[in-house]
């Protein structure tokens, strides 16, 4: 590596699709017409949409150029806290495109889909084993939908015991999807503050837990990158008053093979396959958010469920207590394939080692940067660590300024301004797939940005300078929304 700043390169402009195109061009090989035309009612016939006509190379160049304006994990380090931006193995992409998987219609008779059903059953078992929970549903399409599933499961379970509760406890460090999902289920969030060590205390939970509270939504490890050490006592307090413990498993990457979720008192948890299990983020999705439950919640799981008898698999909706269906079919099978392939490639030792190295990487960064950025909780962290912009405030430099300048050094910024409990939070999660060299380069870049904050703060305020565009006016975008061309 010669200089720390990202060098410039040739990067081409590209118009919007409808600014290109000429009527009559095509980028599609129209299949042969082997039938005559049939009449179409005038009442129903429409004009068709106003789409541009483009040739194939026009489309390929368009998207090739657009891709060059982007930054992916394959481009460089992406230390987004709680997102687990680890390497996405290419063999997993390939196997997800096997014709026998990609071309499979979900409504085929079960006799024709045994391979797919077997994959799902095995994945359910793997995830149950990894989390040490009893039964799994792969149906939720994302973490947030997994959270909704969890809320519905708890609601149904309590109802089956003639209990109707209206509130749920949510820590101040929770991800926004937690209260949003709870609200969808009709639960009013009751906020509980984390203690001075950055984790929940049993006393604080006991103060708010009552017989009108369905339970607690706890993220473990939490969004400060800390293990909720009092989880057992907290679970006890919640269970004692008839409530249930929901665990947001987004941070599972810290604890695979190390922690027994079931023993810690969790009743239901969700996983993010697009985080812990290395399926690609796709610029925002698709992902998958399976739920893993203790036995007593199994009757309420979404349908259909997959049954196995003598090695033959079938789908069944015959679960009268089920909360119902959440997905058009069975969940994001195309994503499940990749997670399944990942688990088969890593094995037990590989997954445990991944978690250990993820935690090692994060602690290493924490030690190296704590003299440069303010570290609100100077304690052993798990797979991510949280800093703040406290040291930079006297120069009127913010977390946002530092994040924007970091781009000029060739890194995607960490998660910023979350969790809310830390003012100007900077949440760094390197994941286990980053090498020591890359991490050292990242640390060096942060050091340089922090130095610039003192010596030449205008460089930060004007950043980024080496991206395709400079800082964008988000206020203008919201004030005069232009959502389509």
């Amino acid at each position, binding site marked *: 590596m010669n200089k720390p700043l990202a060098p410039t390169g040739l990067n081409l402009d590209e118009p919007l699709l409808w600014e290109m195109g000429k009527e009559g061009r095509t980028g599609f090989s129209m299949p042969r017409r082997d039938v005559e035309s049939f009449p179409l009612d005038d009442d129903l016939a429409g004009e068709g949409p106003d789409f541009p006509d483009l040739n194939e190379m026009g489309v390929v160049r368009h998207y090739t150029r657009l891709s060059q304006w982007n*930054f992916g994990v394959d481009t460089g380090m992406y230390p987004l806290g709680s997102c687990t931006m680890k*390497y996405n193995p290419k063999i997993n992409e390939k196997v997800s495109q096997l014709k026998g998987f990609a*071309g499979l219609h979900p409504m085929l008779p079960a006799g024709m889909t045994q391979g797919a059903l077997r*994959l799902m059953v095995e994945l359910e078992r793997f995830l149950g084993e*990894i989390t040490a929970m009893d039964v799994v549903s792969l149906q939720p399409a994302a973490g947030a939908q997994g959270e909704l599933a969890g809320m519905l499961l708890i609601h149904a379970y309590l109802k089956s015991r003639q209990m109707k509760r209206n509130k749920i406890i949510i820590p101040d460090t929770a991800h926004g999807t937690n209260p949003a999902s709870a609200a969808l289920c009709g639960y009013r969030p009751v906020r509980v503050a984390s203690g001075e060590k950055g984790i929940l205390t049993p006393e604080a939970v006991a103060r708010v837990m009552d017989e009108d509270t369905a339970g607690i939504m706890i993220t473990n490890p939490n969004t400060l990158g800390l293990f909720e050490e009092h989880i057992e006592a907290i679970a006890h307090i919640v269970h004692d008053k008839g409530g249930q413990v929901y665990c947001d498993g987004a941070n599972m990457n810290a604890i695979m093979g190390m922690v027994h979720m079931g023993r810690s008192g969790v009743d239901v948890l969700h996983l993010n396959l697009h985080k812990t299990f290395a399926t690609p983020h796709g610029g925002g999705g698709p992902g998958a958010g399976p739920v893993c439950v203790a036995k007593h919640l199994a009757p309420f799981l979404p349908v259909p469920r997959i049954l196995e008898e003598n090695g033959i698999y079938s789908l069944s909706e015959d679960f009268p207590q089920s909360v119902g269906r959440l997905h058009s079919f069975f969940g994001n099978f195309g994503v499940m394939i990749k997670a399944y392939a990942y688990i088969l490639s890593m094995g037990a030792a590989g997954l445990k080692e991944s978690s250990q*190295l993820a935690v090692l990487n994060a602690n290493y960064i924490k030690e190296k940067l704590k003299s440069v950025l303010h570290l609100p909780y100077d304690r052993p962290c798990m797979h991510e660590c949280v800093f703040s912009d406290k040291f930079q405030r006297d120069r009127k430099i913010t977390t946002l300024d530092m994040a*924007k300048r970091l781009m000029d050094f060739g890194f995607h910024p960490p998660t910023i301004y979350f969790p809310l409990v830390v003012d100007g939070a900077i949440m760094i999660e390197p994941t286990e797939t980053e090498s020591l060299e890359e991490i050292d380069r990242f640390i060096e870049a942060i050091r340089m940005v922090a130095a610039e904050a003192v010596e030449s703060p205008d460089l930060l305020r004007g950043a980024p300078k080496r991206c395709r565009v400079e800082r964008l006016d988000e206020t203008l975008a*919201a004030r005069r929304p232009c959502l389509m061309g």
Partner: protein
Amino acid sequence: MRYLPHTREDIAHMLKVVGVDRLDDLFPTVPDGCLRHEALDLPEPLTEWELDDHMTALSGRGECVSDGAPVPRNFLGAGRYDHFIPESISYLLGRSEFSTAYTPYQPEMSQGTLQAIYEYQTLTARLLGMEAANASLYDGASALAEGLLMATRITRRKKVALSRLIHPHYRQVVQTYLDPAGLEIVELPFLENGRTDVSGLQGVDDLAAMAVQSPNFWGCVEDLGTMGDMCRENGAFLITAFTEPLAYGILKNPGSQGAHIACGEGQSLGIPQWFGGPGLGMFACKAKYMRNMPGRLVGQTLDKQGRRGFVLTLATREQHIRREKATSNICTNSSLCALSAAMYMASLGGTGIRELARLNYDKAAYLKETLRQAGFQIPFASPCFNEFVVEFPPDFEATYNRLLKKNMVAGLPLSPWYPELKHHYLLCVTETRTRADMDALVKEVAS
């Protein structure tokens, strides 16, 4: 392991910096009661080559497959469609700048995703005749649920009407989403002609929304114009769902017929069938409801130098800002599938989509007519797009199963969801079925 770059020396060096002796010592904060002592019981890790073999074998596994083809020649639609996907799209999706990127919260280094999704929003809105489209939801079913919740939020009414001819799975998902909100769902029956019967809604004025699917589950095109008028009169939202957006290549789009929200499944637009998921929840509405929409929105803006750029916008609707007051809990969506759809719509073009839609329509009409001439009942008179219902004779099940062994799937039996349709099957024909395929099917069922 090839995904883990740490050497023994790296680990030793880093442990020293952190101040512990072994990797196991990195977990001092995990209490004993939570520790897992037993090793994970998972299969021995496979090499890349073993994994490839294993997955190939698994993907070919089906009892009824006898001619070696991994995928049957089927006439199945019902919410998931077999369409040709140009190789150029599969190739472009392999560009990892798209697939391995995160949600574009840092817009300056995500202009690729942002412009591509802005284009997707535009093409979607144009396809559906709407003025704003979001950056995707999970699938058609959850999109419909979100649409109904949105209508109840805006109208502050607690009753919705749902056609029985909406995909049965979608109606199940709607039930799951709407139950906790204590909303009342009224079911709309069907008419003899295969369309939804809305007569029961005359004069009903406490409806938040009426939802229909067009083309509906039986493939029939609904009379959206009349429904639009009715909804305008009683202040309810008309929500049009769909499972086959290609239909709007030749049919009047929902926006032109008075729909307030159009939401459905975009899998037909360049996304593989994938055993039912991931899908693409397409969601669009009229401009005045923009601020009530669920999901992410990409908007156009300018940078410091006055250059055009794109950002996520109106985020105050979303969970990371509004938390329990958000318009939805959605975070991760179906972005890469939206990108696929945009590429597909761009490749097809305006001229191409009309031609392809017409081809689908004509092929389905050909099969319908050929079956009718072979003596089979076509029970519903309403026009269809690329799916239709046939009433086979009472003993058809034996024929159906015989055809499965020949790798031919003669549609989907409807009786599980419509017990009154005992011998009715839903058949779908897309551009992927040839005249020869269809003639072969008719010959087999008629014999």
